[in-house]
Structures are given as C-alpha cells and as structure tokens.
C-alpha cells in the first residue's frame, strides 16, 4: 500500500474521524502537544546549551545528561503520542503539507544526530566531562540539535497555517 493510500484509509478510520469532528478533542490534544513540547524541547535546549559551552559550564556533561535526558525522553513520549493522534485525525492534510514532510525529515535528522553523537563523541566523554568547552563533535551536535528543534517547532506551527488558505 502506498503512503497516499494509507493516509486515505486512515482518514476514514473512526478514531481519527471522531477527533476531527469533535469540537474540543482536537484543540485539547493539540494543547497537550504544545505543553509537552515546552517541557521536552525546553529541557533538550538546556542540554544543548551545555554541549555548545554556554550554559552550566561548571557542571559535568554526564551529570547534565544523566539527570535531564530521562525527563526529556518522558516529555517527548507525550509529544509522540499526541502527535500520532493529531496525525490520525487529519492524515490527508498532513500528507499534502510540505511543512509536515519537512518536520518529519527534521525529526529523522535529529535522531541521526543523536545516534551519531552517542556512537562517537559521547563515547569519550570521560576525557572531557568537566571541560567548559566540549570537543568539536559535541559542539556541532549541540548546534545541529538547536537548529533542527527550532525548525521542527516552526514547521509544526506552519502545518496549521497552511490549512487556512
């Protein structure tokens, strides 16, 4: 089944239809999505700021990661859940939206960025744990994450704009 066919099929599923046709369900899920965004991306931004060497410079990098990453992951799980429900309620609109596609690409790249960082530079964290300025690999990963998350937020907001016109 092609992606388009899948979206057409999903569009007519009862769960998505009930979210789409209800007055309050969609705004409610969207609001939870937005609050979870402030929580998870807000915390990720703080971790990234440590990586690029501007916030909490006197705190060990592992300390920042060990304490904050589990929290950010929990918040992100709420984002994924509410995001899937929002997608379920309007798959055809998402399918047609370049912003939605861009958002998915950026989320994918964020995953790649996190994977590469944890598989390479973060392996040697013991040697730069206390350094105020992390090595180049860590700084790049931090900047990439900051820019991509900003892009995800902007693209996410734009999905709703595009539907008005």
């Amino acid at each position: 089944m092609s992606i388009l066919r899948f979206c057409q099929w999903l569009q007519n599923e009862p769960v998505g239809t009930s979210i789409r046709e209800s007055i309050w369900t969609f705004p409610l899920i969207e609001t939870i999505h937005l609050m979870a965004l402030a929580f998870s991306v807000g915390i990720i931004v703080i971790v990234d700021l440590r990586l690029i060497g501007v916030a909490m410079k006197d705190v060990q990098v592992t300390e920042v990661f060990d304490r904050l990453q589990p929290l950010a992951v929990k918040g992100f799980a709420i984002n994924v859940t509410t995001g899937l429900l929002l997608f379920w309620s309007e798959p055809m609109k998402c399918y047609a939206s370049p912003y939605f596609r861009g958002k998915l690409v950026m989320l994918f790249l964020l995953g790649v960025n996190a994977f590469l960082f944890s598989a390479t530079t973060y392996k040697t964290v013991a040697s730069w744990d206390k350094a105020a300025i992390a090595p180049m690999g860590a700084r790049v990963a931090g900047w990439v994450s900051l820019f991509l998350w900003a892009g995800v937020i902007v693209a996410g907001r734009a999905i709703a704009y595009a539907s008005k016109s």
Partner: protein
Amino acid sequence: MFPFLLPLFHWVDTSWLSREIRASTWQFAIFEMIHLLGLTMVLGSLMVLDLRLFGVGMRRLRPAELARDLSAWMLSGLAIISISGVLLFFGEPMKLYGSPSFHVKMGLLAAAIVFQFTIFRAVASRGEALPVLSKLAGVVSLILWFAVGLAGRGIGFL
C-alpha cells in the same frame, strides 16, 4: 471587556506598525513562531529549576547555583517572548480586546512575573533551608507559567 483600556487598543489599531503587520502575509506568522521559540527557552529553563526544587533533575547543584546558571537563558527567552508578543499584539489588537483568553493571559502573566521575581527568587535562593516552601514555590511557578501558555493557546479558540 475593560472599557477604560479601549482607547489604548484603538490607538494600537490605528498605528503604523499595526497596519504594517496586518498588511503582510508572513510577518504575523513569523512573530508567532519566534514567540513559540521564546516560550521553549523560558519554560525549559524554568522547568529544570522547578524540578530541581523537587529534588528531580540536576540534584548535585544547589538550587541557587542552578538559578544563577539558568537565569541568563530565562531572561533572554523572556525578552524574545515579550518583544514578539508585543508585535503579535500590534498584529490584531481589536481581536485581542474581544478575547477573554487574552485578558486572562495578561492577568496570569503579570502574576507570574511578579511571583517569579519576588517570592520565587527569594525562596529558590534558599532552597535547601526552606524545603517545603521551595517545593510550593516550584509548583506555583509551573502552574502560573503553564497557565499563561494555555491561555495564550486559548486566544486561538476563544
């Protein structure tokens, strides 16, 4: 809703800046996105600090140290969100005048700012000496700021 404020909203409505923003297709959208990015910065740094008051997250740092480390980010976020917020206000003053969500949001925002820079600051800097009070301050801070965010989203609905 507050008739004595109506002249202010009218004045904004007829200003050059307001006409400029309304005439543009993209300006309002761009300010709104910047507003969201600022929100992430403010709520993110607040969240890390408030969670710390609960003994969650950055536990090895004292609350006062953490507050000092994060304050620059919270303040820059607050600056970004305020400037973009004023520009958004200029983009649709008369709609906002008629929006209950907007009036609630401004009330909550005033309360949140006053609370954050008086009681919260005093309590958080003595976090360990005042365990119960500092947890309470953390809860009130989170509730107030998230309520500001919720009311802000509400402007789109009511």
